[in-house]
């Protein structure tokens, strides 16, 4: 059977690229070995940033043991989530060409014949199904989600992306353990510096390898290894350069030509990135007009916007940082959440807040804030931004602004605040 594989891709001489080989695969592998753990850790941190242990905050309540690492998400530094989630999304986008190149470089292995020479090989190949499936699943769901292409999903994004991540992490970890020695020896087999000095003329196939990646009947090269590495790196650079702007403020934001959330709205104080428009969330000017009141649950207090503006006002520059990877820093003004807690008869530091919005049906129309978040002196019920009243799309009449909280917890169109003892 071994000597008579089926025709086509199952025959070793079908694969003719003179560049495939253990060294090349290991270069891509090394880049992913550095990048994937960063994406995984920032992704898991993002889950912790939601403070899922607070009532109503967990988008994946069936997580079981997978939430073992949660902690009280800090409010300092205010830009932390902006950085971690920006890295998660932008680095993920940037590594797409490397992932594709890695998959290309090992494709003959998919068709290796016989499919398994031993039980060990069969079991390892099963883990590779989880590795490749998990990697592509995570990249695809992430990329579609940041483009708001929800209608493509037959599942809700949060559980799919989270549990898919754990399957991928499991397979990735075992792949690293099993292949690390091979990667190191393959990387040592050639000098990167020499490859970067070798043009097309000097490009020869790698020597035959035990991994079966080197072509048995290589074609003449039409691209040097240097050229291929530059091509893949150039692809990464291109995606990075066209998307990183959505995590920046100032003129560089305009460079985000191919990124969902690097859009320009104008030059006014409210002209910055919107996510979740008022009309889509069922918030109309009627409910936010002069009749609007902020309800402080457990008290008789129903505060109008004028009464809120009469409270001591504080101004802080705080970022909105979205789980979808974009962020922007703006200057917010309003009363402190801690002052509102005192008004409701509570002691800041000893109470959590439950925030309810006017929006209808959104996944984040309600959110809990931790005692630490309520007590931070920069946590505001923002009424104004950049010196002007909030626009309806940015949460008029009032929205939450908590330093370092994920964007969806900066609830817009707040209608009721409940201060209550910690849920433990």
């Amino acid at each position, binding site marked *: 059977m071994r000597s008579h594989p089926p025709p086509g891709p199952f025959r070793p001489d*079908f694969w*003719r*690229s*003179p560049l495939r080989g253990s060294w090349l695969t290991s270069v891509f592998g090394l880049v992913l070995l550095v990048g994937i753990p960063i994406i995984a850790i920032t992704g898991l941190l993002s889950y912790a940033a939601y403070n899922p242990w607070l009532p109503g905050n967990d988008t994946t309540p*069936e997580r*079981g*043991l*997978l939430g073992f690492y949660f902690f009280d998400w800090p409010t300092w530094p205010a830009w932390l989530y902006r950085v971690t989630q920006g890295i998660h999304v932008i680095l993920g986008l940037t590594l*797409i060409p490397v992932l*594709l190149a890695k*998959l290309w470089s090992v*494709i003959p292995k*998919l068709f290796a014949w016989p499919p398994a020479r*031993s*039980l*060990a090989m069969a*079991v390892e190949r*099963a*883990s590779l199904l989880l590795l*490749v*499936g*998990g990697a*592509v*699943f995570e990249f*695809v*769901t992430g990329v*579609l989600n940041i*483009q*708001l*292409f929800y209608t493509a999903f*037959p*599942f*809700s994004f949060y*559980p*799919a992306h989270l*549990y898919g991540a*754990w*399957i991928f992490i*499991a397979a990735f970890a*075992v792949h690293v353990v099993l292949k690390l020695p091979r990667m190191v020896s393959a990387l040592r087999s050639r000098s990167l510096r020499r490859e970067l000095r070798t043009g*097309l*003329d000097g490009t020869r196939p790698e020597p035959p390898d035990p991994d079966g990646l080197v*072509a048995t009947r290589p*074609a003449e090269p*039409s*691209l040097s290894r240097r050229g*291929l590495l530059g091509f893949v790196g*150039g*692809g990464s650079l*291109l*995606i990075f350069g*066209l998307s990183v702007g959505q995590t920046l403020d100032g003129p560089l934001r305009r460079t985000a*030509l*191919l990124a*969902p*959330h690097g*859009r320009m709205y104008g030059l006014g104080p409210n002209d910055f990135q*919107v996510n979740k*428009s008022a009309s*889509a969330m069922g918030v109309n000017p009627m409910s936010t007009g002069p009749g609007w009141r902020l309800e402080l649950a457990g008290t008789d207090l129903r505060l109008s916007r004028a009464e809120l503006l009469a409270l001591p006002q504080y101004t802080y520059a705080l970022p909105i940082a979205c789980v979808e990877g974009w962020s922007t820093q703006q200057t917010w003004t309003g009363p402190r959440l801690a002052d509102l807690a005192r008004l409701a008869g509570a002691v800041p530091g000893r109470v959590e807040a439950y925030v309810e919005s006017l929006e209808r049906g959104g996944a984040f129309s309600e959110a809990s804030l931790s005692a630490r978040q309520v007590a931070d002196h920069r946590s505001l019920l923002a009424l104004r931004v950049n010196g002007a009243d909030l626009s309806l799309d940015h949460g008029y009449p009032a929205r939450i602004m908590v330093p370092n909280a994920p964007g969806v917890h900066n609830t817009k169109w707040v209608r009721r605040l409940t201060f209550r003892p910690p849920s433990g």
Partner: protein
Amino acid sequence: MISRVRSLRQWAVGRYGADPLHLLALLACFTLAGYAASRVVVAGIWVGFVVWFVGAAIIHDLVLYPLYAVADIAVRWRPWRRVRPSAVLSHPPPWINYLRVPLALSALLLLVWFPLILRLSQDGYRRSVALDTTPFLGRWLLVTGLLFAGSALAYAVRLRRRAPGEGSGPGSRPDDPPGPGQG
């Protein structure tokens, strides 16, 4: 005791085909992955999840790869290769990568951003961002145009730099007939 461990290990290597630690590491992987999969079932999304997961495992090797391999063969296939209008251009430097690179980079951007470029995510996008996805097609075309223009410029510079009378040299290799799986 030590010899017993050693003989057990040899037995495992013989029967299993690798060190027992290999099996242990993989069992740990399947345990964690299996647990995560059980959460998928509890979340009630397993049908769509499994379909997408299996699709993700094969989409590169069985869909994307054949597409770009055939595209690569297509751009290298030159039925008009005998038509040589001028003697000056009879041995041009290899041009294939000046076509391949901008084409592939443009395709890469389309692969990543097709929901925006093709306006497939228009509904979700407008609800969220309060703008529509109209500009993205133009932006992608602009970037594509710049990539091709840059590539053409680089090729022109290369043509100019060639000393007159210089032969094709080793650069004629890309004229060789392509085979499948060529990089």
